């Protein structure tokens, strides 16, 4: 009975929207946005559904923007590592770099299970900046912050590897032979 009343109360309401808005909020790019701003973002997203084995994009294709996974699993692979670089699931996102530079895709993305994903593309971001600069700047700043933290992490990794390399080049200290005392 209670279930029926609840169903009736929610009849016609789009119950999926709030859930997806939570997914959006969990993405670092949109984390600082207000409810109204998230609704504005939702309006410009493109919803797509993919069957298992279907390609979302191919490595070296011109990049247009990023995708957010609402449900399903996406496999990421490169031509050098065709056996899957990684798997992404619900609430995760991929392909965000072309949002800024529109450069070619660095990997191939393929649906592993039935997927529902949302595309957020550079021309829509530019159009958003044009008509709502405040929101546009917020998103671009978040993107810049994500990329700068990745750059910092990459720098640290490079530094660490450089140290390791230098350490491996240094000649090993001569091993002292133990004096055996003659008694």
């Amino acid at each position: 009975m209670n279930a029926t009343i609840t169903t009736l109360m929610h009849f016609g309401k789009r119950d999926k929207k709030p859930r997806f808005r939570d997914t959006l909020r969990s993405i670092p790019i949109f984390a600082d946005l207000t409810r109204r701003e998230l609704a504005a973002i939702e309006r410009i997203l493109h919803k797509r559904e993919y069957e298992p084995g279907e390609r979302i994009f191919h490595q070296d294709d011109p990049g247009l923007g990023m995708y957010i996974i609402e449900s399903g699993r996406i496999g990421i692979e490169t031509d050098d590592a065709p056996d899957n670089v990684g798997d992404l699931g619900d609430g995760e996102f991929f392909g965000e770099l072309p949002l800024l530079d529109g450069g070619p895709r660095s990997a191939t993305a393929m649906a592993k299970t039935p997927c529902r994903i949302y595309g957020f593309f550079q021309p829509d971001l530019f159009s958003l900046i044009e008509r709502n600069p405040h929101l546009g700047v917020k998103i671009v700043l978040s993107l810049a912050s994500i990329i700068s933290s990745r750059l910092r992490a990459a720098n640290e990794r490079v530094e660490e590897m450089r140290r390791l390399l230098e350490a491996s080049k240094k000649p090993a200290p001569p091993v002292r032979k133990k004096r055996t005392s003659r008694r």
Partner: protein
Amino acid sequence: MNNPQTARLNRWLVISGFGFFALLMFTAPGVVKMVVLSALLAYIFDPLVTAIELRGLGRTASTCIFFLFVTSACWILFLLVSPLVMAQLEALRTGVSTEQTAGFILRLQAVVRKNFAFLGLGNVDLAERIQEIGISASGKIIDFIVEEGPTLVVYAVAVPFMIFFLLKDGREIKKALISVVPNKYFEFSLDLAYKMDVQLGNYLRSQFLDAVTFGVLSTIALWILGVKYFLVIGLFAGLANLIPYVGPVAGALPAIAVCLFDTGDITKVFQVVLAFVALKLLDDSVIQPTLVAKGVNLHPLLVLLAIIIGGEMFGILGMILAVPATGFVKVVFQESLVTLKKYGFRED
């Protein structure tokens, strides 16, 4: 895209929609004219609504404010111009009457009788013939207004209505059309749509701005020269300028005719011709290179063919819309080829 069945259904719906539109082109060209005109105007006005949106308003509110402004401006213009237009129509209907004009016609008649007698024009009565033509032309204009009145009213109501919804929901309509594209071609179609949007928007807006500039300059020139009905003739010249080659001549002809029949002063006719030649030179060398998008260069033969086909299919409005429509088709092909090369579809 939704699940495969829904996707297939949506695709068929869109294909049927395009098929229906193509069918309408032949069965009800009036409707197609209305839709094309509304779409072009919505395209031209879109940045203005976006500029209002920049103030922090929603799309619907911005569209409403834009419409309120445009409607008020049109209404004020109508109140100002309609008495003038009616007076001009009335003047046309009553025919040529000034002494100067009569003198000019008599002189012209003498020349024609003397030099063209061998063509059977030895006893021609030019004043009567010109009056007949004038009365028949003004009668045709009035007949057109009476016969086409209901259609004009439908246009006056339907076109703004369509423009309103195209401006308000244009983005959603584009998104809905893109959503039916199969996954494999989705990013390609989206990329193509965005590029076409930019190219086409620039092209149409620049054409519109060029027509407005030419119209305003013609009006000022005719006002300085003291030509009667300078406002209507100037506006017509601006509109006619949208039709390449034919337009500038068609725009100058009414001004020349008015000068001839109003004053009969040949010097003034020369001044008007000179003004239009100077304006056309200014348009070709300064206005067009500054305003009109460089990406859409149409071959003169293509333009001429487009004008003839547009005129055959949809009359004067077809001639005006022919060039932007051809520009649209060229942008579609051009961008499709460039984007197709970039994506180079591979077999999955």
